[in-house]
């Protein structure tokens, strides 16, 4: 029991984000970033590049946040 708790804490510490996160938090952050990038893309970039590029970029960022954050 104790050991598992310590493991849990360890899982919450690592990563590059400036605060402790769990899996939910990181998925949440990725979704927030995804929406943000899409909206900015629609406003500023869509004339040049199609929206799918934004999707790819945000999925990549999202992957990094979820795995390393």
């Amino acid at each position: 029991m104790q050991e598992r708790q310590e493991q849990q804490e360890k899982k919450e510490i690592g990563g590059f984000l400036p605060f402790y996160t769990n899996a939910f938090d990181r998925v949440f952050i990725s979704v927030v970033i995804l929406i943000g990038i899409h909206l900015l893309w629609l406003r500023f970039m869509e004339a040049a590049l199609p929206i799918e590029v934004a999707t790819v970029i945000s999925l990549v960022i999202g992957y990094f946040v979820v795995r390393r954050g």
Partner: protein
Amino acid sequence: MTISLRQRAWRLFVTYGFWIFTTIVTLLPIWWMFVVSMRSRVELFGRPNLSLSRFFVENYANVLTDSAFQRYMTNSVVVSTSNALLVMALALLATYALSRYKLTGRDNIFFWLITNRMAPPAAFLLPLYIMFTRTFRLGDWTLYDTQIGLILLYCVFNLPFAIWLLKGVIDGIPIELDDAAMIDGAGLWGVLRHVIIPLAAPGLAVTGILSWVFAWNEYLFAANLTSVQARTITTGLAEFVTVTGTNWGELAAMSMLTLIPSAIIVILAQRYIVMGLTFGAVKE
């Protein structure tokens, strides 16, 4: 540190000056509403006069004898009281669970609960309207225009607030007290009744009062999800502006009448409000 008499007098003077000023600023709009409610239609226009010239109670008489007003008032009392009781009970259970049990992702659940209060009401009216008229139905009975519908709906914005308020209070009750009661053989209900509820009483009281006030004051949902039977007092208030070509005197009279019940409750419960509104500041 010795303070001379003169210094003390000066300090008292400043304190009272400050508070008298604050009181005037606070009361001026309410006073104006009262003055307007004491005037007939003709007297309103012309040079604005802040003093009360005479008692003209016809506005009040008109409002009070209106059968629609009486129904609205009853509805409001029933809806806000039941909502406050329901919110207190549910929030107590939910907060106890969030505070004492190791639930997966409880911080996230807590945050999600709070986000329910953030929804901009205008767009959510449409799905709610559809749900109220079509989705929840038993034969001919729907949630639309019923008190129970409003009672349940008001939980959406009252529960997040209540849980947040109580979270601080219940987190502040040492868990050892629970354990001690459990060792003495108390079950879950025993712990809640003999440990949590007495210790969290001020917090619970504030939760109840504020939920009551929020429910009493709610307008948008009540206006759009009721038609005749379950209309509440705030909706009636707004009707004065549109339907009767804005009868300011009666509108003001009704606003005064709407204010009275919540003012009484708050004055009676004044002591608890400050004790309970700590939001977990007393953790240590």
